[in-house]
């Protein structure tokens, strides 16, 4: 059984990518399983989708802890958590365009063995595969993953046509470009053998996830004499409680103050409240790059600029 884990940010289409792979593999007569993990269901937050491919019926229902293949849609993912449990001959496929220009941290570079990559961002843009300002990088990534897994170009096309029966032309083009343009396939392990192997049960599963209780609580909550711990499901807002959400960003909004009419719609719509009302300065430490401000701006005074440019 082969296990794959796809990491990305909410909205990048990790689930769709997994389903495209699963459909193609199912048509090849394999047992397939996709396991999305959405976390807090917050657009832009780190998410993952795991999947399993096997020649036998798949009984496992738990998360994937020892993936053979990691697929990384974007950088800004914490490399430690992403790499966790990677098989010793594991393969890391990355969206090359997004690696490391900003964070200076190349996840794949830390991993020995086969590390293929593809410019999914560039291909999606070139094929005009853009939805609400966001390039659909999962489609070229599907082409690249298919190359790794031995899915034929014909099967890639069929998967896409099944997923989007109406208007799949640009997607097929982008996926086939991903299939062709993926680089660094030297030393690729035999995926079909992994798929045919019996399930390798992980020996170490992180059962105990450390929990940090919020630090600033009113004394009264702690004083509950029954439990001795805060019993009420009450939370107190703290800046940056989800970490530096600015690291989630692939593109950053830039306000053109010459054409801006100060209508403040961006300030109203920003889901992260990172636009300063008086100065219209954006706090890039926490701006997650969702592009809602650019979408809403009636004067078209906000441009989304790719990070690193």
């Amino acid at each position, binding site marked *: 059984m082969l296990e794959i884990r796809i990491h990305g940010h909410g909205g990048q289409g990790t689930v769709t990518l997994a389903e495209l792979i699963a459909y193609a593999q199912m048509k090849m007569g394999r047992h397939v399983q996709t396991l999305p993990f959405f*976390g*807090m*269901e917050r657009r832009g937050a780190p998410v993952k989708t795991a999947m399993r491919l096997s020649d036998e019926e798949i009984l496992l229902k738990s998360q994937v802890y020892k993936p053979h293949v990691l697929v990384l849609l974007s950088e800004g993912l914490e490399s430690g958590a992403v790499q966790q449990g990677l098989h010793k001959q594991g393969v890391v496929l990355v969206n090359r365009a997004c690696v490391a220009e900003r964070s200076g941290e190349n996840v794949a570079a830390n991993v020995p063995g086969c590390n293929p990559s593809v410019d999914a961002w560039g291909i999606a843009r070139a094929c005009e595969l853009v939805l609400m300002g966001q390039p659909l990088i999962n489609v070229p990534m599907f082409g690249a993953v298919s190359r790794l897994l031995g899915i034929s170009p014909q099967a890639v096309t069929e998967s896409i046509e099944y997923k989007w029966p109406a208007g799949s032309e640009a997607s097929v083009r982008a996926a086939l470009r991903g299939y062709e343009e993926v680089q660094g396939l030297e030393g690729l392990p035999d995926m079909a053998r992994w798929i045919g192997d019996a399930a390798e049960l992980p020996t170490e599963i992180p059962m105990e*996830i450390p*929990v940090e209780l919020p630090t600033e609580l*009113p004394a*009264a*909550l702690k*004083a*509950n*004499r*029954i*439990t001795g*711990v805060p*019993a*009420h*499901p*009450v*939370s*107190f*807002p703290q800046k940056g409680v989800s970490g530096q959400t600015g690291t989630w960003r692939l593109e950053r909004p830039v306000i053109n103050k010459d054409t801006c009419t100060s209508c403040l719609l961006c300030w109203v719509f920003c889901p992260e409240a990172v636009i300063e009302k008086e100065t219209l300065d954006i706090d890039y430490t926490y701006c997650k790059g969702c592009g809602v401000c650019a979408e809403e701006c009636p004067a078209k005074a906000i441009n989304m600029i790719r990070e690193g440019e």
Partner: protein
Amino acid sequence: MEAERLMKAERQGQDGGEVTDERLLKTGCHAAALAVRSARVDVVAAYPITPQSSVVETISAMVEEGDLECRFLPVEGEHSALAACAGAIAAGARVFTATASQGLLYMHEVLHMVGGGRLPMVMANVNRAVFPPWALLVDHQDSLSQRDTGWLQIYVASVQEIYNAILQGFYITQEAQLPVMVNFDGFILSHCASGVMVPAQEVVDAFLPPYEPLWKLDPAAPSSFANVTATEYYGKHRAMLQRAQQEAKPIFKEAAARYRDHTGMWDGDVLDLYRTEDAEVFVISMGSMAAEVKLGVDDLRSRGIKAGAVRIRVYRPFPAEDLVQVLPDGSTAVVLERNYSFGMNSGILAVELKSALYGQKNVCIHDRVMGIGGEDLTWRYMARVVEDAITGKEATPWQPE
């Protein structure tokens, strides 16, 4: 004569303190409203439903006439009623509502919110059968169906106990940080007028100090309630709810003792025991039938059957350890109950009793579901059912006397 003796039995422990109080002729619904007034409740949000209507109508009139300083919210349904209550509690108010039957079922989602949210409040539920077909009279299907919502549940057996349990409920809910549901039988108690002792307001105030919330929503110090949370937090909150239920039991006992010290009245322990010391046959039931069955126990004893009555007064947390203490090895228990556990060929109470005693005590348990939809339960009938059960006869068909 019997009734008088019964009343005495129910009041054992009463030390007959100084009478500075009022004895009024009141129905159960009015007694509930009087308890709300005595408790100086800040907010009541409610929707009327038979047989509960006169609880909230009376409260509404009290507010209208300036007899109770309280915000009364007449909402468009029970779901909204309890949701409004939840908001008021979160804002720091002492809160009450009342409902029955379908109204309680309609509240189910919000019951979880208030229970899981650890929001202290008291609700009076006037037990009434659930539909279909429509029925207006008592059984316990409505509240027992809400068993796993995190609420503490009390079942009372007299009009005075309605008043006492609601007042004690306000003390218990503050101490346990869990909501309290006080259940009383529709019509049998809700519309039955009897003498109700209402202590002087200063006596109640001494028993029940002004409400001070441990936490409240405050725009000056923003916080959010019941926000989406990660799995590891969620599990901890649910585990704490489970633990809090278990640890609430001493609070019931403490509240009852405190109430007796202040008012001289006793309604309290998790179990109400009658002639159980040397009993071999234990009749176990809840609500008003559990009072009348004491006469059935006398009757059985007069015919040589060593019977005793166990009234389960606090149903959540379930008094498992207390029942293990009371029921000796080799004894027989006959559960008489006004509800079904469909698909279990039993009532809910018998299932729970078996679970509580499993591996602890070897007790032969018979179960008899009765009194459904308000069938009248006389002590003669209940005694006959018990006798038939222990002598291995078929279940006695119910018929009006």
